[in-house]
Structure formats: C-alpha cells, structure tokens
C-alpha cells in the first residue's frame, strides 16, 4: 500500500533536502549560522592621533639613526656582531661536524654497550616491544618525569599570564560569543564525524605506546587536537559542559601525582635493590610492560588537557 505524501511532508524528508542541497538551491549557512559580523573598529580620532604621535616619537627615538649617532653606532655594532658571531658559529660548527664520526656507520661511539643492552635486553627487562618507550619510561624515566613537569610548569606560566579575573573573563566571554563564528554547519558536520575518530585514534596511540610507534605525548597531542576541533565547531558553551578549568586542574593533578608516586615507587625499589611488585606481563599483550602503560595514559591525559588549555587560554583567557 502506498501512501501519497503531501508536498509539505515531502519537503521534510531527507531525500528532498539532500537533492535540494545537491542542486544548490539552499545555502546551508543561511538562517542556520549564528554570526555577528564584528563592527568596524571606530576608535576615538583624538586617541588615534595621540597614539600615532607617540608612535612616531618612539620610532624617532628608537630608530632615528640619522640624528642619534650613538644609537646608530650601537645598532650597527649589534647587528654586525650578531652576524659575525653567527658566521663564526656556522664555521665552527661545520668544522666540528666535519670531524665528527661518520653518520650511518656502525662504529660510531654512540653504538656502544648502552644501546646494545637496550636493544637486546629491553624487551625482557621492561616488557615493552617499543624499545624507545621502554627506554624513556623505564631506563631513563627520571628525564621523562622532568619533561612532564616542564609541560606542567609551562601551563602554569601561561595561566599566570593569560588567565583573566572574573569581570575580564565575562567581557572576554561576551566578545568571544559574539565575534567568533558559531554553528558553522559544515564545520559541525565534519566535526561530528571527525572528533570521535580523532579521539579514538589518540587513545589508540596512547594505549599502544609500548607496542608500536606512539606513546603518551603523541597520543595526548592528537586528543588535544580533537578537543580543539570540537571547541571550534561547537563553541565554549558546549565544551564547558564537560571540560572546565576545574576538570583540567584535577586531571592534571591526578595524572601527575600518579606519575610521581608510581615512579617514586619504582625508583625507590630500584635504588634499594628491592623487588618491585609490578608485573611485566607478556610482551606484546596490551596489558604488559609494567608501569609503562599507565604512565603513558597519565602523560597522555596531561598532554591532551594542556594542549586544550593552551588553545583556550590563547583564545579567551580562561575556560
């Protein structure tokens, strides 16, 4: 039994809309996208004049090389010294490089007992198939601990510089709401498909850090990129439902604390020649290689949050 659809009903169907879109009758931007074109910036003409004057004066003072002989001399001197220094450095480094052991040969001093042991015993001692992961998270884990704290302290400094207080934040919010294009249908549609994929891919990279190329940092960066895309497509209002500064704070706190404590345990047992209770597992299995997997997850979380936090800070000064 077939039922004839009314024209009204027909217009609601997907096929109708699809064909209409194909034939280009409807612009998806029209009526859907929320966009306030930013008003042309109209500064106070007096202020502009004053600013220009100051600017000129400063430029005169700083770059007035005709009248200020000393400055001129200093600039010249600085530039020449810099360039000479650079040329000297290039020459020096090239000479140095020419004396360095040849690339690609087996006999370089770098290929000594250290790398041999990493390659030969790495699998057995750390349980990681990816020898680099085993190296940075087990043999030389102290560096990596430091490295994640570099990231942490960098976010702290960015927070200090760019985090706004309450009133400034509200202002920034308003201006961000108004002037950043939102509800861009194309972007949203693409994001709907891509963001989950990106995030899942990031998780895959993190979880397989000990089994193949990848690890906490690269995976975290991928997830962070996914989050940034999501933010761009759907705006702060949506992301703030699940990701605020508080979330960021606690995730970072827990990950870094876990990192610190886990590594402390491993260092402590190692230095005191105690037996570590952490199992190595079967090499190749996803749940293997002792602490490397959880550490990768922790690093991944920190990095993802940090990348997102950087973006949010740069764009709005808070999230």
């Amino acid at each position: 039994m077939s039922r004839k659809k009314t024209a009204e009903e027909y217009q609601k169907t997907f096929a109708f809309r699809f064909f209409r879109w194909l034939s280009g009758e409807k612009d998806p931007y029209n009526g859907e996208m929320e966009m306030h074109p930013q008003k042309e910036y109209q500064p106070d003409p007096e202020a502009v004049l004053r600013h220009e004057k100051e600017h000129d004066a400063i430029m005169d003072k700083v770059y007035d090389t005709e009248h200020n002989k000393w400055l001129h001399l200093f600039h010249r001197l600085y530039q020449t010294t810099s360039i000479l220094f650079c040329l000297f450095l290039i020459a020096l480094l090239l000479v140095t490089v020419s004396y360095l052991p040849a690339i690609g040969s087996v006999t370089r001093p770098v290929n000594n007992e250290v790398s041999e042991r990493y390659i030969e015993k790495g699998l057995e001692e750390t349980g990681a198939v990816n020898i680099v992961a085993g190296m940075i998270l087990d043999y030389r884990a102290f560096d990596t601990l430091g490295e994640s704290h570099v990231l942490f302290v960098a976010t702290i400094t960015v927070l200090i510089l760019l985090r706004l207080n309450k009133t400034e934040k509200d202002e920034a919010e308003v201006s961000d709401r108004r002037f950043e294009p939102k509800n861009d249908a194309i972007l949203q549609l693409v994001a709907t498909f891509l963001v989950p994929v990106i995030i899942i891919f990031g998780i895959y990279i993190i979880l397989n850090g000990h089994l193949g190329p990848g690890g906490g940092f690269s995976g975290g960066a991928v997830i962070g990129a996914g989050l940034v895309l999501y933010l761009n497509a759907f705006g702060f209002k949506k992301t703030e439902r699940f990701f605020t500064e508080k979330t960021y704070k606690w995730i970072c706190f827990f990950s870094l604390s876990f990192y610190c404590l886990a590594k402390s345990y491993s260092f402590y047992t190692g230095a005191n020649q105690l037996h570590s209770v952490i199992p190595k597992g079967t090499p190749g299995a996803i749940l293997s290689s002792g602490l490397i997997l959880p550490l990768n997850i922790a690093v991944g979380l920190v990095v993802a949050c940090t990348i997102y936090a950087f973006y949010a800070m740069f764009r709005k000064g808070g999230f």
Partner: protein
Amino acid sequence: MNFICNFPFFSILLSLFSGTICSVLPAKAAKVVNRVVIIVIGLMSAVLLLYLLSTGESFIYWMGHFPAPWGNEIRAGVLEAGMALFFCIIMYLSMAGGAHKLPGEVVESKHNLYYILVNLLLSSLLALVYTNDMFTAYVFVEINTISACGLIMIRQVGRTIEAAVRYMIMSLLGSGLLLFGLCIMYDLTGHLLMSNIKESVGLLIANGEYQIPLIVSVALMCIGLCIKSALFPFHAWLPDAYGYSTVSSAAILSSLVSKGYIFLLIKIIYRVIGFDIFNSTRIIDVLFVFGLMGMIFGSLSAIKENDIRRMIAFSSVAQIGYIYMGFGMGTQAGMVASIFHILSHAATKSLLFIAAIGLTDVSGGSHKFIDLTGAAYRNKWAGAAFTVGSLSMVGIPLFSGFISKLLFAQAAVQVEGKMLASLIVLGISTVLNAVYFMKTVIRIYAYAPDAPYKGITFRDMKAYAVVLVCFILLNVILGVSSQPIVDMIGQGLAMFA
C-alpha cells in the same frame, strides 16, 4: 644501603610532588605546604650532610632498576648536600622575608600558582645539584628557566613582562647552545652519564682523537651556561627582572637561580670533562676575561643607577663576574673561592633585596634614592640589615664578603700569569662597590625630618625583622667562622674527582 642515602631522591621528588599538590590547594594551604616542604628538605639535606661528613665518601643512587651506563643516576657528596641545605635556607628566608608584600604584588587568585613555581624551582635546583646525568640536567635546566621566568612576570607590570621576554630569549639561546654541546658530547662518547662521559673523554684525550669537536662541545656548554647565568655581556635582562619582580622572586632569582646554573657548570667541569683537561683549554681564559669585565662594568652600571633595586641587581652582574674570575684562574683554590663566593653572594644579595624592600616601604614605595633619604630611621631593622649587607659587599672583615675576597686573592697570588690582573680588578671593583653601597648607606642614614612618610616599629613587622636577623647572622657566620665551610668545600671538590 643506608636509609639516609634516599634523602636526595626524596627531596627532589617531594618538591616536584608538592608543586603538583599546590595546583589544587587554596593559596593559604599552598603557602603552608611550600614552607613545610622547604623546611623538610632543608632538614633532610642537613642530615645527609652530616652523614656524608661522617662517612667521608660520596654515593651514587640509581634512579630505577638499572646500574650505571644504562639507568639514570643521581649522586650526592658533601658539596651537593651542603649546597642543597644552603639553597633551602636562603629560599626559606627569602620567601618568609617577602611574604608580607605578596598580597600587594600578586593577584590573590594566583598565589597558589606562585607557590607551585617556587616548589618546582626548588626541585629543579635540587636536581641540578644532585644529578649525575647530562640530559637530566638539561631537562631540569629548562624547568628552572621556565619557573624563573614565571617568578619574574608573576607581578604583572609592563617591565616585568618585558624583562621576562628578554630573559627567555637569552635563556633559550643558552639552552640551545647547551643542548647542542651536549649532543656533540654524546656523539663523541656515546654516554649521557657524567662519570661515563668522563672516562670516555679521558680515553679520547689520551688517544688524541676528536680533539676539536671535544673542545667545541665544552665551549658550547660553557657559553650556554654563562649566558643563562647572566655573565657580563649577556646581562641585559637582569636589572629589569630583579628590579621590578616581587621581592621574594628578586631575592631567589639573584641568589639561587643563576647559582644553580653555575653549580651545574662546576659539575660539568669536574665530573664531565675533568678539571685538568678543562684547565688546559683556552676556555678558562675567556671566562677569566669576561669575569673581570663583568666585575668592572657591572659596578659602573650600578653607580649610574638611581633606583635602589636596579642598583642591587647590577651589583649581581659584578658578583657573578667574581665567580667566573675564580673559574678562570684554573686552580683548585680559585674554584674553592668561587664556590664560597656563591654562598656569600647568595646570603648577601638576598639580604640586600629583602632589606631594600623594607626601606622602600617606608618611603612611599618609591625606589628612587631621593625618596629613601632617612629611610633607615623609619625602619631601623631594614636599615641595619642593609648596612650589614653593604659592608659585606664592600669587603669589610667580619662579614662574608671579606672572606670570599680573601680567598680570591689567595687564589690569585698562586697563579703567576693572572695574578696582577685579578688583584687590580678586585681592588677596583671593591672600591666601586664601596662607591655605590656606601653612598646608599649614607643616603638612608641622612636625616630627613620633613619626609612625609611614617616609620614602622618592630611590632608591625616581627616576622620580617626575624628574617633580617637570620640573614645578618648567616652573613656573620660565613664571615667569622669560614674555615669549616672552606674545608667542606675542599672536601666536596675532592669527592667530585
């Protein structure tokens, strides 16, 4: 292994971890955590120092389950433990001395961030002191740089941010060179651990292989660290950074941050390259010359300055010049003198910064000399402390500055070629120091009955006064009973070999 051997590891991890904890704590709690952590680490370092003095041997501590060339290591000897203890003392006093100014300088909501930075700075300093691995040192150098930058610009006025940019640019040049030198060194030796590199370097030198890259690598590392520690031609960022950041930051930056790099340089000289090999290169002559220039030009700039904090900052340039001059002499005695000067300068410079803020506070917050007239009458404790610091800087006996100058001179007398230059410059620099410090002292003790500022009494600044007294005591102790400390430094250097 004795349990005490865990202490270096505990102190690094504790300060790192406390940094993380502070990120979720409110400001008050973060402050308490910060103080407690510094005290605990100080106590641990003291115990460790005593332990090491009693055993007389340094020890290696594995960071992980793997021995020397494969795993990561830290190492503790008398010098390291002593430095850690001293850094903790100075840091605690600086934090306590500047605490009452903090609310006015930093937005309330960012206080806990401030404590995070301080904790991480402490951890990076400790790691620089204890580490036995070059790459770890590089990573912690970066933590040190970034957190120092944070400390500079946490008081957000235009000058500090500009200073932070300049500081970062200089520091990054320095780190770039350091890392490049490190890479070349790694390429030549195939190791990253200091003790293993030293073995390989010894072999390379003995076989006469790779001489040029080796020297270049050492030179790059040295220049990198010199840039980072604001040796003379690279000091452009320093006056703004020290002159306008928060009080505690200025005290910590001037007395500790650059000293961390210098200590790393000492470790590189002794533990990576070997003292004799380092001295046979021309690098020490370069360090010597730049040190001398720094001593003179730093003081000259300080004389021209009419802002008290910038003046003290410029004086740091001169003092760092002293330290490098000691390196440049290329003798054990010069090195001992430099290390003692690290201590004495740290104690004096932080004292001066903390005292200066007491003086500017009672002068309407102005740093200009003209407003400081008679400030010592309005804040007697700060005035007395500033005078002590100045006397120490000028090198009056009984204070720490005299001993370090004495040590420098004794070291200089033993080096034939550099004796005259160093003694003469030492003399000129002493007199220049006297010019600007005594000028300031006279200024603050000049009587200004019609100054429109109110004095401050002991009751209003108990904690501050106590900190000042501690600083003065520290200075006098260094100046009066220096022998045990000098012995300890000698012992520590012997352990380095």
